[in-house]
């Protein structure tokens, strides 16, 4: 069905209350029996499974409309309630309305002049600010609840008390009088239509008395189907159970009234009926116990069907299950392009794309049909122009079928290399969580992805699974290709910079390759370039004697555009006081002139993922996404090949420090311990000076914490000075590939202070953390300072404190993710329909303006320079050809 086939379009939806007449009018049967089926399994007439309510068994004709299962929509029945009950959903509104009207004459408790004023105001609001009408109604109701005497009939008014969920009292001087629903209904009936409008109701759609039920609609049986278990036992839906309860009590109430039973008994039954109706609507109403199944499980009634994650809205309307999708574990493949996704053959044979046969593809299509559903580039179905589907699973002789197809037939062929698919990893927090990839059919059973797309998906390979969807129409494919392809998403709108780029080994490799010491023979250089897919000439060697040698910088330069200029400081920059620029002793000053890497090493700052104002950022922004993809696909392979050929590993002996360094660290730590002792001493003497806004104890704590933190930092510094330059962990930390100097310091020097709730560890026993310490010991060791390094091993006490800190971190992340997830959900829900229009305004769906210019400056962050519309420095550099850093 296309858009043009829709006969009617919905212009507006109006919500109102069902009147008793309406309920009776739409009802096909008055339900009076609480039973469902008789002994033979035949539905009982006027029972809850009456056949007029619609069919649920296949082959049966509906007694009302004559349609069969799929066609019959089901029909409502009704229950005539012996006594009215308050609709629990409107209990609050009933209360507010009762307060605002006279119990005797039903008029709004407003003085004549106030009344006239509000009538005029309401009319004005209706015309000009319809959205604000309910606010005015609220105001009117509040105002009306204040009057003590009715200005119309002069009767004294009583205060009304509301007890959740459905009980109302009137406060008389003699004591509280309970208001029966029938009395409430009678009062609401006396409200005139004009007054109802002032109370915020549209009397045509919702008369106030309809908030008190006299007739209860019974939903069709298709809404609450009964299930037959294998044993032949019929099990009814929760809603049916609840309706049975309602009918039972209703019948008993009716009998008792007819028999003239005492008022007390009738009132009890009435209240019970109210309870059942309340739980029928919402079984999680506060203040009353939930109705339970015989097994003790609370019933899932109307509100529960709609509410929450498993409810109708979130589970069935906002989210549905789809065809043409696949899910499996992901694993890395550095050899495929970042635009590609590796799809297992088995998956490729199940996912199809409908392709219409034309004179250009008919031969190919015939081949696919011949291959059938079990051989990979094959087909699963053929659709003839008359709409008939031919299943290719069963016929033995597919050759004849292949020969019989003509132009105009549609073949549902397997997906094959180059097809466009959408790839997604939950949670889908930003637009890069679903991107379009090109298919690459591969053996084995996992989806394969290039490592550079891990950051946008936030994926790793510790068992992550991802979903894949196949767009079925030409339009969908085109849209996916243009807007959603991975390379189009390299620059993130979160901040103006590339979200995809080098991670981990790519960075280590790039650094090792571009280091000054990296010299390659002709064989090595050729090998690297071939693995990167380079097919041009080898540049002239940098060193000719005694042997031809190429530098790594030369090889990388081959992948830059020839007019590319850039200057930046690398991650390994030591932040010396006076920058020597090109003469940097660490080779941290990156200069690229005319596409040649003149000085500096490539590391996280220049090619890393999520690094704005980097080499990668400039490449993508100035030369387009194709250039970006090329660089990531080709140059990055060079880095990997190099690290593959050299190897990068860390071992225990690498974390060894010379005696001299160990001694220095010991001294630093000892000094800190002494300082701490000194602080405690001063504190004990009462000479410690309080910091502003802190108690004496807090001052001591902060000072000790500062002292110990400083000690750890110093220890780390010493360690990094004494570590050899060949240390792999140090290399990774400096280049930003993985880990930090702090991690390294933890391993070789000193783990430092452990904390719980941002404080030193203070819990455990009375006045001490562990029985190993004297009560009241304030020293560093007794409050979780770990002197040892991981390599020197922690002693049991240190280990225990370390576990305490570690546990807190773990719990924290678990709690934080769920909280921020919910926050995100609510935020997205509120903002999902807002968009930027062509005139630069930010508007809601009704055209109302939210921002007059997007972000006040109208800049698209994805196309900006780290949030700025233009980066003047870089433009100068581009034009002048020299850096301004």
């Amino acid at each position, binding site marked *: 069905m296309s858009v043009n086939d829709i006969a009617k379009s919905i212009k507006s939806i109006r919500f109102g209350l069902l009147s008793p007449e309406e309920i009776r009018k739409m009802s096909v049967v008055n339900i009076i029996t609480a039973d469902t089926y008789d002994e033979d399994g035949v539905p009982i007439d006027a029972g809850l499974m009456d056949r007029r309510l619609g069919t649920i068994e296949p082959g049966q004709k509906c007694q009302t409309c004559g349609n069969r299962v799929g066609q019959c929509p089901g029909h409502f029945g009704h229950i005539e309630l012996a006594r009215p009950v308050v609709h629990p959903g409107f209990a609050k509104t009933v209360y507010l309305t009762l307060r605002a009207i006279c119990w005797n004459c039903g008029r709004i408790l407003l003085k004549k002049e106030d009344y006239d004023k509000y009538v005029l105001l309401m009319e004005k609001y209706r015309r*000009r600010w319809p959205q604000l009408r309910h606010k005015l109604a609220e105001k009117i109701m509040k105002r009306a609840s204040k009057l003590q005497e009715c200005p119309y009939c002069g009767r004294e008014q009583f205060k009304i008390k509301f007890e959740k969920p459905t009980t109302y009292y009137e406060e008389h001087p003699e004591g509280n009088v309970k208001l029966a629903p029938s009395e409430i209904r009678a009062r609401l009936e006396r409200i005139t239509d004009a007054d109802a409008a002032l109370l915020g109701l549209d009397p045509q759609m919702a008369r106030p008395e309809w908030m008190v039920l006299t007739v209860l609609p019974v939903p069709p049986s298709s809404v609450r189907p009964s299930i037959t278990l294998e044993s032949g036992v019929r099990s009814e839906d929760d809603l049916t159970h609840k309706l049975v309860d309602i009918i039972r009590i209703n019948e008993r109430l009716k009998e008792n009234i007819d028999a003239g039973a005492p008022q007390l008994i009738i009132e009890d039954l009435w209240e019970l009926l109210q309870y059942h109706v309340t739980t029928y609507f919402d079984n999680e109403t506060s203040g009353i116990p939930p109705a339970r199944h015989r097994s003790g499980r609370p019933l899932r009634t109307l509100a529960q069907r709609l509410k929450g994650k498993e409810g109708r809205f979130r589970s069935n309307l906002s989210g549905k299950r789809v065809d043409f999708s696949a899910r499996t574990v992901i694993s890395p493949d550095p050899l495929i392009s970042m635009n590609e996704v590796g799809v297992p053959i088995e998956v490729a044979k199940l996912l199809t794309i409908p392709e219409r046969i034309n004179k250009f593809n008919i031969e190919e299509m015939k081949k696919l049909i011949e291959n059938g559903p079990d051989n990979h580039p094959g087909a699963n179905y053929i659709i003839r122009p008359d709409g008939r589907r031919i299943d290719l699973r069963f016929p033995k002789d597919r050759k004849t079928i292949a020969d019989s197809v003509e132009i105009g037939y549609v073949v549902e062929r397997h997906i094959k290399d180059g097809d466009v698919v959408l790839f997604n990893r939950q949670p889908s927090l930003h637009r890069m969580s679903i991107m379009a990839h090109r298919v690459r059919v591969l053996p084995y059973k996992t989806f394969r992805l290039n490592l550079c797309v891990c950051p946008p998906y936030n994926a790793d390979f510790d068992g992550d699974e991802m979903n894949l969807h196949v767009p079925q129409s030409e339009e969908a494919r085109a849209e996916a290709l243009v807007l959603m392809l991975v390379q189009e998403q390299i620059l993130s709108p979160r901040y103006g910079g590339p979200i995809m780029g080098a991670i981990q080994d790519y960075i280590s490799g790039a650094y090792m390759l571009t280091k000054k010491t990296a010299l390659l023979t002709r064989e090595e250089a050729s090998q690297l370039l071939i693995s990167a897919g380079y097919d041009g000439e080898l540049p002239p060697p940098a060193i000719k004697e005694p042997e031809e040698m190429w530098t790594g910088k030369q090889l990388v330069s081959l992948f830059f555009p020839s007019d590319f200029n850039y200057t930046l400081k690398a991650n390994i920059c030591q932040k010396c006081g006076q920058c020597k620029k090109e003469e940097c002793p660490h080779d941290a000053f990156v200069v690229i002139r005319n596409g040649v890497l003149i000085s500096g090493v490539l590391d996280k700052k220049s090619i890393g993922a999520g690094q704005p104002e980097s080499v990668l950022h400039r490449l993508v922004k100035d030369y387009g996404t194709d250039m970006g993809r090329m660089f990531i696909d080709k140059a990055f392979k060079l880095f990997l090949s190099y690290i593959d050929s050299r190897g990068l590993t860390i071992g225990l002996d690498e974390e060894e420090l010379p005696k001299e360094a160990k001694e220095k660290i010991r001294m630093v730590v000892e000094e800190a311990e002494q300082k701490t002792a000194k602080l405690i001493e001063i504190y004990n003497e009462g000479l410690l000076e309080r910091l502003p806004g802190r108690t004496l104890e807090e001052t001591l704590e902060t000072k000790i914490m500062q002292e110990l933190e400083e000690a750890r930092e110093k220890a780390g510094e010493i360690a990094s000075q004494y570590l050899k330059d060949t240390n792999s962990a140090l290399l990774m930390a400096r280049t930003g590939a993985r880990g930090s100097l702090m991690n390294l310091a933890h391993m070789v020097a000193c783990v430092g202070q452990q904390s719980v709730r941002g404080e030193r560890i203070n819990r455990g026993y009375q006045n001490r953390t562990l029985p190993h310490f004297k009560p009241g010991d304030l020293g560093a060791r007794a409050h979780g300072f770990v002197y040892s390094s991981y390599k020197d091993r922690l002693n049991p006490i240190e280990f225990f404190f370390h576990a305490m800190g570690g546990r807190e971190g773990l719990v924290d992340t678990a709690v934080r993710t769920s909280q921020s997830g919910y926050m995100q959900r609510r935020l997205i829900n509120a903002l999902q329909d807002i968009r930027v229009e062509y005139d630069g305004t930010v508007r809601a769906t009704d055209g109302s303006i939210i921002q007059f210019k997007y972000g*006040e400056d109208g800049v698209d962050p994805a196309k900006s320079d780290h949030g700025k519309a233009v980066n003047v420095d870089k433009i100068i550099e581009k034009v002048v050809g020299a850096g301004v850093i």
Partner: protein
Amino acid sequence: MVKFDILKHELVPKFTILSKEEVEALRQTYGIRKEHLPWIRKSDPICKVLGAKPGDVLKIERNSEVAGKSIAYRYVVPG
């Protein structure tokens, strides 16, 4: 409490009530009805000071970190 002129406070941007013609021009540029502008209540302190009535449109000129100067409008509603 000392009565205090909020218009003089450094954090309060410049507010002006638009004339009928200006409002019409504004409606034309954005192609909207007045109700499509963001709303401001009549009870808002700034409306009280300026004496803005429901139906008026306020112009706000403020200094912006990103754009230097930015202009916004508010539609006065009762309440």
